[in-house]
């Protein structure tokens, strides 16, 4: 037996458990939008990265593209059993529209919020018809993110309010298939001391949790506050949830950078926040997470690095997260550890973060980036991402179904 054979055997033994540990069996990727080509750029951007959802037996994706010369919002649906997405529906009107956020309402119904000409609009998307767009919230508003909270639809967004933008909560009711505005309120009772940006909300039982970027210490941190169903606008005092580095690793200046928090619930009212974090400032952004706590003291627990050690020298961007009632939780991001950007996943496994999995169908030649993920009740993974052959080239949207593998 040659040395090479022995080494190959050792490598295979090392790799095999990882391969078997994958919780999903991936199918062939599917094109989401048939409209693509030179000069067309799709954007999977939303505060909280909620661009895909499953409702009943339908998966839907929302995005923005410039096919008609101005940025507009589109939605495409696919019955889970179908092999292709159906023709897409334009959601926005005539203005410049950006950053759509999607939420499942069950039974094949969805709601979409987006920014159009610096106002926020919300629309119900049923199996049979598209509801009327409702303008909500304040003027000079942007970065909308939707969540369903029991029978209500809740929208968080950033809007001008004094010297700096501030995070607002807009409550909405769905009455006989129509949206109706309910009270709105700022999440932080105090006027913003610096910019508050990119909010996202999570419904956990009777709790509503809102997290956002906040620049009050002179650099960007992640902050959060929560309230409960009895009084949704009565938020707790905001707390910082992104920790600083150890003193010996502190950067020169005000502090390190963080960006774009996302939230997901899983299991029996557990919650997790993830974001891009540059506390190891020589390595660029890493993916960090913190668990929502219910001990009544801190809102979120100690921060943990999500990516494995192979991601240390690479850069991680565009962190998305999804969980389900069965207790599964997955984080997705794009990562250049193998050269160009690829989509990478990590999930909760035995109470800790798994080894990273580079998704084969969302990696390799070209640039695969900006993932959004959804876990359905059977723990099947629904992944959408943006793909382009070269930097600055036209984009296309790809969808991948990962069938849960039962242990």
């Amino acid at each position, binding site marked *: 037996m040659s040395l090479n054979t022995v080494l190959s055997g050792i490598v295979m033994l090392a790799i095999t458990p990882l391969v078997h540990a994958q919780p999903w069996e991936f199918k062939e990727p599917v094109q989401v939008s048939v409209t693509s080509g030179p*000069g067309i*750029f799709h954007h999977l*951007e939303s505060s909280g990265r909620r661009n895909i959802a499953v409702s009943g037996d339908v998966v839907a994706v929302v995005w923005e593209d410039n096919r008609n010369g101005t940025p507009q919002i589109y939605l495409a649906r696919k019955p889970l059993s179908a092999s292709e997405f159906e023709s897409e529906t334009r959601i926005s009107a005539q203005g410049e529209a950006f950053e759509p956020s999607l939420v499942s309402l069950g039974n094949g119904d969805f709601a979409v919020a987006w920014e159009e000409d610096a106002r926020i609009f919300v629309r119900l998307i049923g199996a049979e018809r598209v509801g009327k767009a409702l303008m909500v919230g304040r003027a000079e508003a942007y970065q909308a993110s939707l969540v369903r909270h029991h029978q209500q639809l809740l929208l968080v967004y950033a809007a001008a309010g004094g010297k700096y933008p501030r995070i607002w909560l807009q409550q909405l009711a769905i009455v006989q298939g129509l949206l109706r505005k309910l009270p709105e309120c700022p999440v932080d009772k105090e006027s913003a001391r610096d910019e508050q940006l990119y909010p996202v909300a999570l419904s956990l039982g009777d709790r509503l949790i809102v997290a956002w970027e906040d620049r009050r210490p*002179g650099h960007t941190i992640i902050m959060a506050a929560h309230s409960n169903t009895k009084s949704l606008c009565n938020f707790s005092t905001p707390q910082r949830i992104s920790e600083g580095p150890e003193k010996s690793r502190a950067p020169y*200046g*005000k502090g390190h950078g963080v960006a774009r928090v996302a939230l997901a619930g899983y299991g029996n009212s557990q919650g997790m926040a993830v974001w891009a974090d540059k506390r190891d400032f020589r390595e*660029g*952004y890493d993916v960090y997470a913190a668990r929502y706590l219910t001990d009544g003291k801190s809102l979120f627990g100690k921060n943990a690095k999500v990516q494995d050690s192979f991601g240390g020298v690479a850069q991680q961007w565009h962190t998305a997260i999804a969980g389900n009632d069965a207790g599964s939780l997955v984080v997705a991001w794009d990562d250049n550890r193998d050269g160009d950007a690829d989509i990478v996943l990590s999930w909760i496994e035995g109470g800790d973060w798994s080894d990273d999995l580079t998704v084969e169908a969302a990696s390799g030649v070209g640039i695969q980036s900006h993932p959004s993920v959804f876990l359905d009740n059977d723990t099947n993974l629904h992944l959408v991402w943006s793909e382009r052959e070269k930097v600055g080239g036209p984009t296309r949207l790809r969808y991948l179904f990962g069938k849960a593998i039962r242990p």
Partner: protein
Amino acid sequence: MLRPFLVLLAFLIMPVALADKPVGYEFYTFDKAMLQAKTQGKPLFVYFGRYGCGYCDKTNKEAFSDEQVRKIYNSHYVLAYVDSESGKRLRLPSGERIAEREVGTRYNAFVTPVFTFMTETGEVFHRMVGVQRIEDLLSAHKIVQQKLANTVKP
């Protein structure tokens, strides 16, 4: 009498303390700078910073404050400043809409500051990472001008 003066002083120095672009330079947004570079026939000098970036602040104070650096960079380059965490939307000459943070991602500004010299189409031909001294910026200018001279076809 002293207090209003101190408040005014704090207000005046705040932008520097928060590591914005250096004062005394004509910085454009990245998309506008690309257009300017084409119009003026000059290369781009792109400063990738971040809100609260201490090393950007240090470079502003210790290097960009130099009068020779200011004269050279203002006259030889079209200057662009990119906040690598900002969601500010830009539209590139190609028609692509892109956020400032995404420009940072595209040009691998995973630490700040990063300084890049680019062609009008965004092709990088010289890059500097981290704190820069006066002599670093002057030396980079010489290297870049030499590269440009070497690429001029007879």
